[in-house]
């Protein structure tokens, strides 16, 4: 039976700061940190206008269990709530996410990220998934999340797609 509607997100604490830090503690006493780092500058060469872009990261800041954090059904709802709050603060922003490719488990991380934001409901956002192949064989899975009524929606999504599609001659 689908009991999604009965799941409440964890309570979150927004501390702000340079990387717009939010934290939450799970029922296992694991503390996660969610950050949105300003990365507008990396779009400078790709767009003719400035945008508010932030890179999203989630990490375990404290884990007293000495075990890998278990799957926790409340986490996707909590992430969705943090995303929604952050987009309310800066409606015209875009968020990018890259999966860590340092140990070749980036595809698993991509699936986990997709699960986390599965509950990020509503039709007001667009998620663009892309892949960039490094010359050393590493594969970077990237995601762009943008509000559909962003003033530069078309230009930003097209630039992100073009970037993933282009190859040097």
């Amino acid at each position, binding site marked *: 039976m689908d009991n999604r509607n009965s799941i409440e997100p964890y309570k979150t*604490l927004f501390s702000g700061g340079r990387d717009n830090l939010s934290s939450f503690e799970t029922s296992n006493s694991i503390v996660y940190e969610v950050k949105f780092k300003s990365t507008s500058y990396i779009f400078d060469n790709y767009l003719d206008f400035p945008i508010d872009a932030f890179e999203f990261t989630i990490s375990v800041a404290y884990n007293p269990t000495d075990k890998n954090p278990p799957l926790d059904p409340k986490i996707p709802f909590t992430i969705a709530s943090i995303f929604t709050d952050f987009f309310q603060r800066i409606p015209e922003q875009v968020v990018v996410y890259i999966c860590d490719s340092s140990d070749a488990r980036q595809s698993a991380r991509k699936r986990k990220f997709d699960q986390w934001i599965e509950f990020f409901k509503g039709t007001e956002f667009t*998620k663009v998934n892309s892949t960039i*192949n490094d010359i050393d064989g590493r594969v970077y899975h990237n995601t762009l999340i943008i509000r559909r009524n962003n003033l530069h929606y078309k230009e930003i999504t097209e630039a992100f797609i073009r970037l993933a599609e282009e190859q040097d001659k």
Partner: protein
Amino acid sequence: MLEITVHPHNGPSSKRAIAFARQLMKNKKEMIEESKRNSKKPEFQEILKKLRELNG
């Protein structure tokens, strides 16, 4: 949520696309390392205290 997937191509991406991805990866590693470092600082204990108050 509307979802668009750009299908991957064979072979390396453009230099500027690779530079873009590497910069994001660098930022990400820095943020994760910083979280680990900060968890040993008094400011983190303050966050932990506030979270526990929130959770009752």
